[in-house]
């Protein structure tokens, strides 16, 4: 099997004032690619974030931590949001 692209851990700052939170990981061949992959994967619905990517191998862990990242919906690309769709009042559970 071919050599795999290395794994990078992704940290996202949702907005100024908050710190970076671990969002998950991406595979990328280089740092530039990792940042772009992280942007495409973990910030599709938001603008104005800060992204850190770190090779997973570079991380020394004692205890896993990290809470869930919470997203504020982006103004743009509003079709991603459920509120964009008009479903009649009488139709439930959707």
């Amino acid at each position, binding site marked *: 099997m071919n050599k795999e692209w290395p794994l990078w851990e992704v940290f996202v700052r949702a907005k100024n004032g908050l710190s970076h939170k671990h969002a998950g990981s991406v595979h990328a061949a280089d740092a530039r*690619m990792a940042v*772009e992959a992280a942007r495409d994967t973990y910030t599709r619905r938001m603008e104005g974030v800060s992204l850190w990517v770190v090779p997973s191998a570079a991380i020394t862990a004692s205890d896993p931590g990290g809470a869930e990242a919470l997203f504020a919906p982006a103004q743009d690309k509003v079709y991603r949001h459920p509120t964009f769709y008009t479903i009649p009042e009488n139709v439930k559970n959707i």
Partner: protein
Amino acid sequence: MPGEDNLFHHAVRLGDDALILAQRLSEWCGHAPMLEVDLALANIALDLFGQATFFLGLAGKLEGQGRDANALAFHRDVLDFRNCLLVEQPNGDFAQTIARQFLFSNWQELLMREIAAAPEVRLAAIGAKAVKEVTYHARYASEWVVRLGDGTEESRARMIAGLDWMWRFVDELFDSRDGTPSLRPEWDARIARTLAEANLELPKPRRAVLGGRAGHHSEHLGHLLCEMQFLPRAYPGAVW
């Protein structure tokens, strides 16, 4: 107004470039070399579909005959499409797709900067939003040109072949009649810089293939439109 009519065609050109390229890019969905690449190409396609919707929507308003973006996208035949020949070229392999994106987005970025400063306010607004998006597209494509050009022997050969396929469609972008000749020097510099970093030579000059701006396309566009326009044409009047 004579000015309006030119503006209509201008908006159509901008919209068609974005629409046809987006249609091509979206063919990669589910088939890219890596999941992360799939997401990136889809993002670029989505940006371009957005631009197409805005530009064609504006074109319809300028024309003032009740045609909206969908009417323009789904109910014109090849002679009335005004996209450049570059964007309708087939995807080929990933290197060919990157070659097309590299040449186009570097031009489109310069163009959108100009559009963002256009006197027509609505056009300028679309351009301003597009600049941010296309800056990313150009950078993404340029980075891949370097990776493929200066990667393995195989990737280098494919990158050269991709650029070779697309090069005959470059001059159309800068055509003195309906292109943007003033942008050529800066575009040339950008292309040269990236190719140098990629350890690639500039493709040899060759006879330009023209015609897209006048509705004379390659054989590819007919098939592309066939697929894209089938449903609205098969079910006229249907609302989806």
